């Protein structure tokens, strides 16, 4: 890293209230130029609110933020020249074709007709939409619409890109496509802030991760640090024969040194582990005992588990729990 060490995004004490709801309650964040920040959080944590403030769509009620060195409120016009924003919900014009959507944006930001057309073609190609380019966006599937939306935010070659849950609702192939795109953009020097509900996604793409909960940052760090804080990975073993559950549990307990939980309904034995070293041992012992398994996996902690570890409560389920309690 050389030249300017000024971070691409700096926010201090961002507050946003909607009536009595506090969507953001004093959020600080810094994203160094050319890196990816993953913002993780359950529904209602304030991820979208933060993205919209940094994208100049909302003004904060407190605190301030600079993007590319420009204040998001006072110099919003400048900020818009360097950012690209893909919101949580597609913001394409459904009554126009994908190609026309992209050409329109190119024209709006000052490209010539020729430039706007070739940029549109290039982006359609990149997001595998060439075949559907001339169809009205209304007829696109959800995933196609998201990809078009992503393409739309790249027309102006932004140096800072916000992606609000970019892969929610995408199939694995399209999701990998988005991940590749993000990686390539980062290679080209783009700074990316992405929100997600999946720890796996943040882990795959982000240089650092922030966890939001109820408008506050409850944890932040590099993915590895966070996972360490969040504690254990989990080793799951599913015997082919449900009758073998007990024996598998015994073998796992012996190899790992911890008593596993046995989920009889799903015929699954899981045990928390700190790393993958016990996996080969389990495999060997199962083999020796002649027990066939249909699943053997080392799983990252789920968002729920991370949440439980970091915040001491389960993400989002509180209201449901209250309702259930009241029902009794």
């Amino acid at each position: 890293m050389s030249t300017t060490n000024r971070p691409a995004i700096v926010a201090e004490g961002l507050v946003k209230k909607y009536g009595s709801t506090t969507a953001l309650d004093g959020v600080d964040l810094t994203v160094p130029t050319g890196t990816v920040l993953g913002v993780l959080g359950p529904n209602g944590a304030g991820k979208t609110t933060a993205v919209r403030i940094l994208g100049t769509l909302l003004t904060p009620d407190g605190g301030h933020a600079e993007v590319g060195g420009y204040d998001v409120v006072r110099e919003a016009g400048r900020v818009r020249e360097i950012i690209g924003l893909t919101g949580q919900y597609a913001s394409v014009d459904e009554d126009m074709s994908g190609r026309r959507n992209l050409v329109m944006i190119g024209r709006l930001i000052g490209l010539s007709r020729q430039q706007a057309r070739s940029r549109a073609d290039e982006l359609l190609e990149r997001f595998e939409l060439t075949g559907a380019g001339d169809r009205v966006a209304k007829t696109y599937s959800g995933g196609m619409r998201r990809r078009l939306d992503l393409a739309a935010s790249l027309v102006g070659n932004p140096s800072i890109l916000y992606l609000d849950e970019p892969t929610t609702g995408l199939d694995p192939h399209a999701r990998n496509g988005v991940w590749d795109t993000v990686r390539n953009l980062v290679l080209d020097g783009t700074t990316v802030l992405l929100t997600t509900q999946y720890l796996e996604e943040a882990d795959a793409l982000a240089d650092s991760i922030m966890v939001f909960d109820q408008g506050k940052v409850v944890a932040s760090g590099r993915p590895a640090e966070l996972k360490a804080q969040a504690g254990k990975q989990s080793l799951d073993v599913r015997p082919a024969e449900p009758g073998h559950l007990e024996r598998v549990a015994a073998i796992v307990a012996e190899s790992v040194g911890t008593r596993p939980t046995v989920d009889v309904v799903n015929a699954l034995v899981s045990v928390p582990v700190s790393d993958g070293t016990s996996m080969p041992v389990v495999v060997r012992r199962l083999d020796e005992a002649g027990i066939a398994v249909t699943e053997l996996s080392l799983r990252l902690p789920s968002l729920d588990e991370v949440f439980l570890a970091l915040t001491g409560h389960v993400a989002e389920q509180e209201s449901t729990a209250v309702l259930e309690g009241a029902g009794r």
Partner: protein
Amino acid sequence: MSTAALSPTGPAAQHAVRRNHPFAWVQQSLTLAWRNIVRIRQNPEALADVTFQPIIFLVLFLFVFGGAVSGGGGWRDYLPYLLPGVLVQSVVFSTLGTGVALNDDFAKGVFDRFRSLPIARVSPLIGAVLGDAIRYLTSIVILMVTGFALGFRFENGVGYGLLALLLVLAFALSLCWVWVWLGLKLKTAQGVQGVAFLVMFPLTFGSPIFVQASTLPGFLQTWSKINPISYLVDAMRGLMIGGDLQKPLLVTLAWMAGLIAVFAPLAIRAYRRRT
């Protein structure tokens, strides 16, 4: 991490061309007006309110009330009087659509995209208004063609006649800022429609669009003297078939200037604040 290796195709000033041009907003507005026209071509049925509806109105009033209103002269006598009125009524009603469509665009998130682009604040609004001018023009052309087919003639000369059409179009382009503002202020498209109709009915029916103001009940007569639509209708008649012109024309122009001066800034402010 990799350093920022800027490839030639990477994010760079590959094209910051006309973005900062002082008249960039003109091009942006035209681009957004083009968007509206593309959308109309895509959904021609959305033009129903400026095609069939005005014709139905004209024909309905002509033949159902023609006899009664014109005092025995029949519908032929009523047509020259009615057509300028229906022109005003149709065009004024079609301005409603501008507010409803804007509200809808906001609800669908299209404006989030525009608002995150480095474009002038007024562009999306002017673009919406200009794009809708096509709709207003459609309803004017349709009504005139129907009118001519039924025997209408510009009794005051073609020049004044065309001026009248220009006047009603210009009035629509001024009035629509009210709906642009409401479209941005109110939460739902239904809300916009509700408020708009509430405002529209007294404006159009409390005016000499269909009958001479002197035949209206007392309170409506008083109202029609304040009502800007009355002056517009009188000015239109003055231009299209002859009659009093100067005062109604001046009052109408003053109203147009006032509507723009008040509601265009309000609309731009609402656009800026809308979240």
